[in-house]
């Protein structure tokens, strides 16, 4: 198991012995991982199990065995919506961008906000009151949209956006969700240098300002090295090593 930082803080997420196989292909092979505060990168060749790891951690796929602790709490087998909704929650983005295509940019981000009341009958009644939460939520969400240079497009529908803007919007949605840990699957893929810079700035700002931790998978080494606090390397379903520090060179 890779030791990441030397202090004794409890990791945000800690997984032990994760196994997952698909028809004889071992995607995760007794994987151990500790994710601490800050931005953690995961690199590795295709088929190393990075996306499977994301699916398992975010609840979209059940591990065959192993445990996942989120802030010390066992969360194995929780469905994704429960993982995302509970307090130190987990949100994720997807390799293939998944937006609410018919909703406006603003609404896309607002969906990610948690509303008071939960899922009780009373909670639903409260959420039915027309956009009462809006003013409070709006400021928060607009801040994120401005950061990602999407504020001028807030009334556009998601399907009208360009590829890069869609990528940014998906990130914005994750930033708006108040989850402790955010998993980003290839946030830099196919994005131009200016937008990469925007993404990096948004990530560091969220890390420093709102206590969010990130786990990133990407193949863009330069971007990963500039934004990640530490980088882990995965091979054949295991974490095989760690490199600490901003100028990390990926072995």
């Amino acid at each position, binding site marked *: 198991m890779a030791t990441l930082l030397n202090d004794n803080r409890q990791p945000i997420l800690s997984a032990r012995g994760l196994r997952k196989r698909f028809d004889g292909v071992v995607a995760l092979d007794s994987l151990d991982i500790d994710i601490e505060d800050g931005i953690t990168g995961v690199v590795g060749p295709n088929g190393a199990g990075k996306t499977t790891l994301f699916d398992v951690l975010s609840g979209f796929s059940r591990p065959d065995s192993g445990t996942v602790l989120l802030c010390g709490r066992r969360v194995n087998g929780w469905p994704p919506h429960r993982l*995302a909704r509970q307090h130190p929650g987990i949100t994720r*983005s997807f390799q293939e961008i998944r937006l*609410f295509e*018919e909703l406006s940019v603003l609404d896309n981000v607002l969906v990610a906000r948690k509303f008071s009341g939960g899922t009780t009958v009373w909670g639903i009644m409260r959420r039915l009151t027309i956009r009462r939460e809006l003013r409070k939520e709006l400021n928060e969400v607009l801040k994120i949209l401005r950061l990602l240079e999407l504020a001028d497009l807030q009334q556009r529908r998601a399907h009208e956006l360009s590829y890069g803007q869609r990528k940014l919007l998906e990130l914005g949605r994750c930033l708006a969700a108040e989850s402790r840990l955010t998993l980003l699957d290839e946030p830099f893929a196919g994005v131009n240098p200016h937008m990469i810079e925007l993404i990096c700035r948004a990530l560091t700002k969220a890390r420093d300002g709102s206590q969010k931790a990130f786990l990133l998978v990407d193949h863009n080494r330069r971007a990963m090295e500039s934004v990640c606090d530490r980088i882990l390397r995965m091979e054949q379903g295991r974490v095989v090593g760690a490199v600490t520090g901003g100028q990390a060179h990926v072995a």
Partner: protein
Amino acid sequence: MDLHTVEMINSAGIWAILALSLNVIVGYAGIASIGHAAFYAIGAYSSAIMCVRLGAPPWLGMAVGCVLAAGLGALISIPSLRLRDDYLMLTTLGFGEIVYLTCRNWESLTNGPRGIGGIPTLRVLSVPVTEMGLMPWLIWGCVFTLAGLLWALEHSPFGRQMMAVRDNEIAAMSLGVRPILYKLTAMVVGAMAASFAGSLLAHKLSFIDSEAGFGLSTSVMVFAMVILGGRGSIMGVVAGAILLSAVPEVLRRFGLPLATAAPLRQIIFGILLVAIVVFRPQGLFGKLKFRE
């Protein structure tokens, strides 16, 4: 206005309630349902049986219909979690047929094709609601009330999350939205409103039988109204309901013999639908344009 025109206005209103109720299911929650007439039938038969057989007041019949429809709607929303659009359509189609065939064949309860007569006229503050008198006001009052409620739903955070589930269920889950809650709500609300439309129909006609339009053709017609007007658009589906329900009446005004008018009507529906799907897939007033 003559009786024909008023009848046309009234029946357009009932179609509008049906189309609005299906719009919650198809337009907001994205559940492809072509069994909507089932809920309509449940409302009509609940009112008829409660009032005629048990002597219950009309509001009780309506309430029983709404509760039954809500229960069955909730049941149908469960497969909608697991099934893809095409399979879900088959499921709802089957559900619609089951309810229709039950109405036709459970003769001890429904009288089947012989029908139930003597359904009492509705009364509002002891004023009877007659076809030429209060009926259009009552029906269209209900249309506008329902439209207002749906507008509120559409613009609430709850409605936004419902539409998020429609657009991308997986992304919605990743953000903490639990799909079943929204699909179930949509199904229950849609079923109740359709059942209410059925109750109105029963009291309006005072006689219903299993062939009064509770079969697949009604389900498809309502679905066509939603698609023609524009799924997700309140104004659109009301316009779709008025337009499509007016076609037979307009043909009748031209004085065509029934033997010509009936097939011509089908041809016109077909052409309208193909034209909409080809030239304006979002419907006349709809905004939902995106298709994967």
